[in-house]
C-alpha cells in the first residue's frame, strides 16, 4: 500500500503535481530548522563550535542559530562532562525548553561519565535525568560525527507520526514535559536518577520514549 502511494507520488511529480501529507510537511519543517541551545560544557563543546564554523558548517542543515535562551531552542547538545554540581542546571534548562525538544549526548562523558567516571563529582551520564535521543560516542567525537548524529536526529524527526499510539512525547498529554530536578545534597545528587526517563509500556518493555 505504501509502495503504491509512493509510485503514485512519483507519477504525479513527473507531471508537475507535487503531493504530500500533513505529517510529512510538519516533519519536514521541523527537521530542517532544529535550533540548538547555546550549551557546551567541556572539550566536546570545542568540537561543537568547530562544527558550526566554516569547515564543517552545521548551518547548512538548519542549525543556523544557536539560541541563547532555552525558550527558543529545540535541541540541547550536552557536550562535555556533566559534573554533579552542574547536573541540576542542565535538567532545569531542559525543563525550560518548550516541546518538541530533543537531546543529543555528545561524547563519552555525556553518555556515561567517560574517562572521568571514577571522579567523585562526575555524573555518570546525563541520561540518568533527561531522555536522550542520539548518543555520539567519541572523546571527543569529530565534527563529522556530530553532523552524522544531527542527520540521524533529522531522520528520527522524519519518522515521527502525528497521530496514533506511537506519537512522540510532545503530542501526548500523559507523557511528562519536564523532569524532576535533582538536588545537590551533602552526599551527591538526590535522587541519583529519574526513573521516569525510561518507562515500561505494556507489551513493549523498556521502550525508550520517542
Amino acid at each position: 500500500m505504501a509502495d503504491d502511494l509512493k509510485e503514485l507520488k512519483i507519477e504525479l511529480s513527473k507531471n508537475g503535481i507535487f503531493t504530500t501529507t500533513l505529517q510529512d510537511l510538519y516533519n519536514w519543517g521541523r527537521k530542517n530548522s532544529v535550533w540548538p541551545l547555546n550549551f557546551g560544557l567541556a572539550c566536546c563543546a570545542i568540537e561543537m563550535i568547530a562544527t558550526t564554523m566554516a569547515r564543517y558548517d552545521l548551518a547548512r542543515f538548519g542549525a543556523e542559530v544557536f539560541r541563547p535562551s532555552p525558550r527558543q531552542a529545540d535541541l540541547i547538545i550536552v557536550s562535555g562532562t556533566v559534573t554533579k554540581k552542574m547536573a541540576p542546571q542542565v535538567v532545569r534548562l531542559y525543563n525550560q525548553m518548550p516541546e518538541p525538544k530533543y537531546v543529543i549526548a555528545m561524547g563519552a562523558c555525556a553518555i556515561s561519565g567517560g574517562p572521568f567516571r571514577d571522579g567523585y563529582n562526575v555524573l555518570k551520564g546525563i541520561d540518568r535525568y533527561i531522555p536522550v535521543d542520539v548518543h555520539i560516542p567519541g572523546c571527543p567525537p569529530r565534527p563529522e560525527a556530530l553532523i552524522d548524529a544531527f542527520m540521524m536526529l533529522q531522520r528520527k524527526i522524519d519518522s515521527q507520526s502525528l497521530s496514533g499510539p506511537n506519537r512522540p512525547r510532545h503530542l501526548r498529554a500523559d507523557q511528562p514535559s519536564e523532569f524532576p530536578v535533582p538536588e545537590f545534597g551533602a552526599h551527591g545528587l538526590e535522587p541519583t536518577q529519574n526513573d521516569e526517563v525510561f518507562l515500561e509500556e505494556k507489551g513493549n518493555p523498556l521502550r525508550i520514549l520517542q
Partner: protein
Amino acid sequence: MAGHAEHPWLTVVALLIGAVAFGVTPLALAQLWARVFSPKKPGAIKNATYECGLESKGDAWIQFGASYYIYAIVFLVFDVEAVFLLPFAVAFTGLTLGACLAMLVFLLLLVEGLIWACQKGVLTWA
C-alpha cells in the same frame, strides 16, 4: 460604482486589512494546529524565570537609578521639542503674531534647559 466617487483612502484600507491578515493568519493557523494536535503541557519549572539553569530568587523590580535624570532632561530638550517644532515649522507662515510669541516662549524655556546642560558639560564627548 456609477454615480459614486471612490473614497481616496479605499486602497489604504484594503492594504491595511491585507497587512493585518498577513500577520494574523499564520498565528491563527498555529493556534488551530495546537488545538487539534498538541495538548497543553505547562509545568512549574517550564514556566519559571530563566536564569541560566539556576533558580531565581527574589524580585527583578529593583530601584531605578536616579543618576539617569540627565538623560531625561536632555531627551526632553531635544526630542520633545523637535516633535512640537515640526508642525510649527510647517504652519509657520499662516500663524498670528500671538501664536508665534507663544511658541517663542516655549522655545526659550527649552533653550534655557539646553544652556544648562551645555554648562554642565554633558554635551561634549568625554
